[in-house]
């Protein structure tokens, strides 16, 4: 049931006779006269309860999403907007108004409503360039950590060292998964020793080290020194290990490691 009126005069011509006040023009869509007793004489395209387009006798057109940035809203708008004007979705929950100058060159952002004046100028819409920049920034922010994670996890799988990687670079990385992958590539033992992890418990030749991962999570590792060779070993333990004995018991799945061990090298 497509209605072919694309300006005020055409719509006015269609709203005659018994359909003078309202005429159904599509699913849940009506052309209706507004301000019947005033001189304004606006004709609106009503979708559900929203006047998505309002045609003024002077040639102005008000485009209004009413906050409903949906496919149907945009489809109905495109059905009844006079050419060259069209609307299209842009990013998530945004609608842009175009005037035929290409998809890269929108006329205005339809935040809620925008008025297209008879002379072709617009009033009340958002700045299209700001919206484009914002959407671009959002997309980049969403994609960047994923790309970085993919890159560094592949490096972990390859098992090749990355000479450019430094402790400072790893600590600067804001994404936790990416940072952990970078630590693995750098060498976990080397990273723990070089990054100045805090000693939270110490017993005999053992030290329990802690490194904050973010505001809530910490990474804990047990530093062990071989009594015979003097070599240092680092073993990652889960964050619930708060002391050296509990870390050792977790490592070897024992009850009282320090109390029972008689010989260790």
């Amino acid at each position, binding site marked *: 049931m497509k209605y072919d009126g694309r300006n005020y005069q055409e719509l006015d011509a269609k709203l005659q006779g018994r359909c003078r006040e309202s005429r159904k023009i599509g699913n849940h869509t009506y052309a209706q006269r507004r301000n019947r007793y005033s001189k304004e004489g606006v004709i609106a395209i009503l979708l559900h309860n929203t006047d998505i387009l309002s045609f003024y006798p002077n040639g102005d057109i008000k485009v209004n999403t009413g906050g409903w940035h949906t496919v149907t809203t945009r489809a109905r708008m495109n059905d009844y907007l006079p050419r060259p004007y069209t609307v299209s979705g842009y990013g998530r929950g945004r609608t842009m108004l175009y005037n035929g100058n290409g998809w890269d060159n929108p006329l205005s952002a339809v935040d809620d409503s925008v008025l297209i004046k008879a002379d072709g100028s617009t009033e009340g819409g958002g700045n299209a360039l700001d919206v484009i920049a914002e959407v671009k920034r959002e997309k980049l922010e969403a994609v960047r950590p994923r790309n970085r994670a993919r890159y560094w996890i592949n490096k*972990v799988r390859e098992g090749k060292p990355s000479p450019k990687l430094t402790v400072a670079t790893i600590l600067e990385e804001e994404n936790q*998964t990416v940072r*952990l*992958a970078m630590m*693995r590539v750098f060498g976990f033992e080397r990273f723990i020793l070089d990054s100045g992890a805090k000693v939270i418990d110490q017993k005999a030749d053992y030290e329990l080290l802690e490194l904050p*991962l973010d505001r809530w999570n910490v*990474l804990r590792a047990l530093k062990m020194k*071989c*009594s*015979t*060779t003097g*070599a240092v*070993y680092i*073993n*990652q*333990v*889960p964050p619930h290990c708060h002391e050296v004995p509990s870390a050792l018991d*977790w*490592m*070897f*799945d*024992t009850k009282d*490691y320090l109390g*029972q*061990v*008689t*010989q*260790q*090298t």
Partner: protein
Amino acid sequence: MIRQGDVLFIPTTDAIPEYLTERGKNEKGIVMEGEATGHHHRIANLEAAEVFRSGWAGGESFVRVSDQGVSIVHEEHAPVQLPAGNYRVKIAREYDYLANAARFSRD
């Protein structure tokens, strides 16, 4: 308990499971293989002890030491002496923060 690097020997009075004594004897006396470095934890004298290992990671392992005792050797650690008896072998585990899971240490 006696520890050499990542390997812990716990004396036990339990008998070594039959499935290990029948099929799990390690003829080379290797208690734990060094996957990364190639350095093994192994018994110094094959006549003084027997090593029984299940074939899968995390499976049970035992060492049966005869009356004369045995020493366990490794390239990076000093030897440890195991007196006579049966020992359950445990491998140290570590927590992998990237995978958010525990795994057995690898030499």
